[in-house]
């Protein structure tokens, strides 16, 4: 009897939680990967999530990007209910999707819809790297294609913010074919005079870089964004030499003639508005 009581007590011994050990309450402060300084998260949000000290462009979620780009209250989402299936019956895929849905509060790695920029109507797609690294499977391909078709039908421009590790492995060849699917839609749109602006944000690689992201009428990028076809590690292993520090950055691509401009986030909306104005596609508010 006595022994039992003693054991019970032992069971309930308390261990200090990890939370108490933390100096910075989660969410209030953010550490800048650029200059390692600790910034108030609120302050960071006020400056378009750009570090005021070093200019590092922190990753933006799709909702933040839409808020930062479109006129307030103008966004109308398309195909929000579309979700992935598991076409190859890939082990663990459904669980990973569910996990990322919870984490990001998104159904998939891209948010599409229509909104206005300084009053100009535009179809828009924004990829979100928090969801399966922004990878493109059937749903991402389909939503982007539908957004292009929406722009085509409404005779409005199409703008995309890319952020993606490339094609989604778990959907195999179907992911690869999404590159072709979005391309056939873009070609139709383009043949009818549709305006397509691609803005590559960190990171834009693999199958996304090697399809719609690179073939905008205008190819823009955010400063220091990683953009490329093959991964840095794979290239280093293949050619057995070290790569320059700025390899595959937006600035590197600009230097090699692959981009029209690198645009600071604070100037993004203004620049997009300017391009839309020159193409004379003013929609109604």
């Amino acid at each position, binding site marked *: 009897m006595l022994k039992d009581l003693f054991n019970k007590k032992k069971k309930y011994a308390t261990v200090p939680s990890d939370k108490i050990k933390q100096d910075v309450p989660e969410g209030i402060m953010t550490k800048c990967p650029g200059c390692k300084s600790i910034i108030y998260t609120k302050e960071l949000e006020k400056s378009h999530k750009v570090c005021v000290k070093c200019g590092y462009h922190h990753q933006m979620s799709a909702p933040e990007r*839409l808020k930062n780009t479109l006129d307030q209250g103008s*966004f109308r*989402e398309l195909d*929000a*209910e*579309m979700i*992935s*299936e598991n*076409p*190859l019956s*890939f*082990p663990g895929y459904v669980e990973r999707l569910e996990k990322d*849905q919870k984490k990001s*509060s998104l*159904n998939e790695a891209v*948010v599409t819809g229509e909104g206005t920029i300084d009053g100009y109507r535009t179809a828009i797609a924004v990829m979100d790297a928090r969801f399966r690294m922004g990878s493109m499977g*059937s*749903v991402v*391909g*389909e939503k982007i*294609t539908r957004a292009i078709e929406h722009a085509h039908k409404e005779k409005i421009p199409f703008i995309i913010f890319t952020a993606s590790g490339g*094609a989604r*492995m*778990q*959907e*195999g*060849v*179907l992911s*690869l*074919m*999404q*590159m*072709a*699917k979005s*391309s*056939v*839609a*873009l*070609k*139709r749109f*383009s*043949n009818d005079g549709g305006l397509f602006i691609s803005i590559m944000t960190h990171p834009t690689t693999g*199958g996304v*870089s*090697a*399809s719609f*992201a*690179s*073939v905008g009428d205008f190819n823009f990028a955010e400063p220091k964004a990683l*953009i*490329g*076809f*093959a991964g840095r590690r794979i*290239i280093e292993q*293949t*050619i057995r*030499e070290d790569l320059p520090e700025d*390899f*595959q950055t937006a600035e590197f691509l600009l230097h090699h003639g*692959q981009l029209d401009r690198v645009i600071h986030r604070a100037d993004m909306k203004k620049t997009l508005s300017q391009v839309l104005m020159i193409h004379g596609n003013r929609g109604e508010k």
Partner: protein
Amino acid sequence: MGQRLDFERPLQELEDKIKELHSFMEEKKVDLTDEVSRLEKRLSKMESEIYENLTAWNRVQLARHPERPTTSDYIDRIFDDFLELHGDRLFGDDEAIVGGIATFEGNPVTVIGHQRGKDTKENLRRNFGMPHPEGYRKALRLMKQAEKFQRPVIFLLDTKGAFPGKAAEERGQSEAIARNLIEMAGLTVPIICIVIGEGASGGALAIGVGNHVHMLENSWYSVISPEGAAALLWKDSSLAQQAADTMKITAPDLKELNVIDEIIPEVKGGAHRNVEEQSKAIQSALTKSLKELTQLTKEELVDHRYEKYRNIGQYTFVTDTIGLK
């Protein structure tokens, strides 16, 4: 017969035994015909068993067989009057892609394909069939030329992928691939693509957007190589055999997924066993495709390609959205 693969070893052993008996019979002048014919029957049964039940990995092995016919082997046998054309007019000539004009059963065509080397020396020149941007831009130049003169374009796909290198990135590997996808989408002539060996990722797709896409029975086509998939997904490239299965990369898999049109049968044991026969099988698939596609107008061809790719993918809908309202 050529070099045998591991899963063909039992066949090899049996064949050797039969050969031994034959020479024994000749040498010693004894009659072992019954024994030989018994073994030959067993061999034929075993062949059927092995080649009709190939695993995904066995097919990958066949697709990589050192003697597997390459693009130029097929060009020589299927087309007449082939004239190879070089260069992208921008940077250089990438020998990982060959292309040119030819006639097919008397009609003008443009034919373009990835080109592996047959030996180390040629592989170095051809970069193991892994193109740089100038390779894709050469293909683009030749397909636009074909469009101008309204002749069909035939693509033969066989690559381990677009080359992952510094120079390739500097010259815009991504843009070169992306541009081809867009331009192939809009080309007003018939496009037929045939995967003859390995079809890895964007490097294959960059010459792979067609009205008809066919695959040789033992070729593979996917978003990544089995080794790459295993490394990326399970951090262990030795699980490639398992990945070959899971990733659904074989011709029957892609037919099932509605990504390809026809599976072109291979000669027993793989294309390398009889290049002449294999070329005939490819030729008859091409004849059939061209007969169908040359009846379409320019607009119909572009629409046909649009519909084909527009419908690839699987998705579903939920009733309540968890995201933005």
